[in-house]
């Protein structure tokens, strides 16, 4: 089984992935809703920008994040002035990297499920006197919920696998930013550490598999049109 230090790495990965998922969830949902429902000039561009982290080399994403969150950078300076915190070398920075990398996957899954909601139901609700807010909370959100959760879980799976952006942005600090992929990378640099590599890789594959299965089961609900959870 895993050593105490290895369990620590797994726990840190779950924390980073979980916080990344929770923080990005509302942003991803808002973006998905806008992309699914609103028509506006520049929509294609927004769509492309949201998808950038999926296709840009992760090392570029990490480098851009490093510049942005540096104390002299635009976001880092703001965090330092208002909250007196820095995310460099911190697990919060790892969560930011993981969240950015997970965003496109989450938006894609959520957008599909929002688009799958039958708009005639919404029109019917409106004719029966429900306001737009009530329609959203009692119809659109519940109906798209399985897809939203599927997207969130998929984003979580992507988060705990994040490597390139993380090591470039917040380094490889044990207990702070050394998540499973970074620990595996470190162990691979060490001749004779194959047993560690195997154990951590097995954990990584296991966690990803569970997340993907959960995500897939939720997606099936969307496809079957089973509109109740």
């Amino acid at each position, binding site marked *: 089984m895993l050593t105490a230090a290895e369990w620590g790495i797994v726990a840190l990965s779950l924390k980073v992935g979980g916080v990344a998922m929770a923080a990005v969830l509302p942003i991803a949902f808002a973006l998905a809703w806008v992309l699914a429902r609103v028509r506006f000039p520049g929509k294609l561009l927004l769509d492309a920008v949201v998808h950038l982290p999926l296709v840009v080399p992760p090392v570029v994403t990490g*480098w851009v994040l*490093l*510049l942005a*969150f*540096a*104390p*002299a*950078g635009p976001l*880092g300076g703001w965090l330092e002035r208002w909250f007196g915190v*820095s995310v*460099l*070398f911190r697990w919060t920075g790892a969560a930011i990297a993981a969240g950015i990398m997970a965003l496109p996957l989450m938006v894609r899954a959520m957008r599909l499920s929002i688009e799958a909601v039958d708009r005639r139901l919404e029109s019917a609700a409106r004719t029966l006197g429900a306001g737009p807010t009530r329609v959203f909370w009692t119809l659109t959100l519940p109906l798209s919920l399985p897809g939203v959760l599927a997207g969130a879980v998929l984003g979580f799976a992507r988060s705990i696998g994040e490597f390139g952006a993380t*090591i*470039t*942005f*917040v*380094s*490889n*600090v*044990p*207990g*702070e*930013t*050394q998540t499973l992929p970074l620990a595996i990378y*470190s162990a*691979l*640099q*060490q*001749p*004779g550490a194959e047993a560690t590599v195997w154990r951590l890789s097995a954990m990584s594959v296991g966690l990803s598999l569970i997340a993907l299965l959960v995500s897939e089961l939720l997606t099936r609900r969307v496809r079957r049109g089973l509109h109740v959870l």
Partner: protein
Amino acid sequence: MIRSLLMFLTLLAAAPALAQGKPPLVLAAASLQESMNAAADAWATAGHPRPVISFAASSALARQVEAGGDADLFVSADQEWMDALAAKRLIVPASRVTFLGNRLVVVAAKGNPVRIPVRPAAALAKVLAAGPLAMADAPVPAGKYGEAALRSLGVWATVAPKVVRGDSVRAALTLVERGAAPLGIVYATDAKASRAVRIAGVFPAGSHPPITYPVARLARSTNPEGEAFRRFLVSRAGKAVFVRYGFIAR
């Protein structure tokens, strides 16, 4: 009775805080992984807080310091990145010490009895060009040193087409360990770390630029434990830890 118990509890709570400060954050080149961890363990055994060490490529670490990351020490695998930080006044100049050196060697799989003749050039070229020769990628220090050595020995033109590159010196080592290449150019410390390879030849020290490792305290470091650990690293006892892993004390 209750009073002494309370006193004991107070002492218990205060003891770790008294004995140990906040652990310093050390940024160290990936090739120092085993040796630097051993040094940190030795330091912790002596009653100090064990430093937290981030191992990555010297280049990535230097860029994180440039961006404004708060760490205490930087240990680089070459002088170039330390110079880059020095130029931007991000290190304390007086704290910079080149404390370790390394050798460049040719490794072969354990069962392979090959010996590498350094001279004449024709004999060296013949042995090295016999099969794929594993080396670190060209921009990685180990790759640069290896190429410089082969050039100065006059065999680069013959050997170059046979070179296979790993993204790090440890990746080059793995190619030899796994039998993907019969020979590889790595550091003496890498050869020592692996049980699957043996040193088949050592490059003459003059055939490539000196391989040296500087340490320095970062200008923004405020943790006295960082400076204390730096002093340990450059001390005789500190260097002795690294010598066990094949480094040369400087």
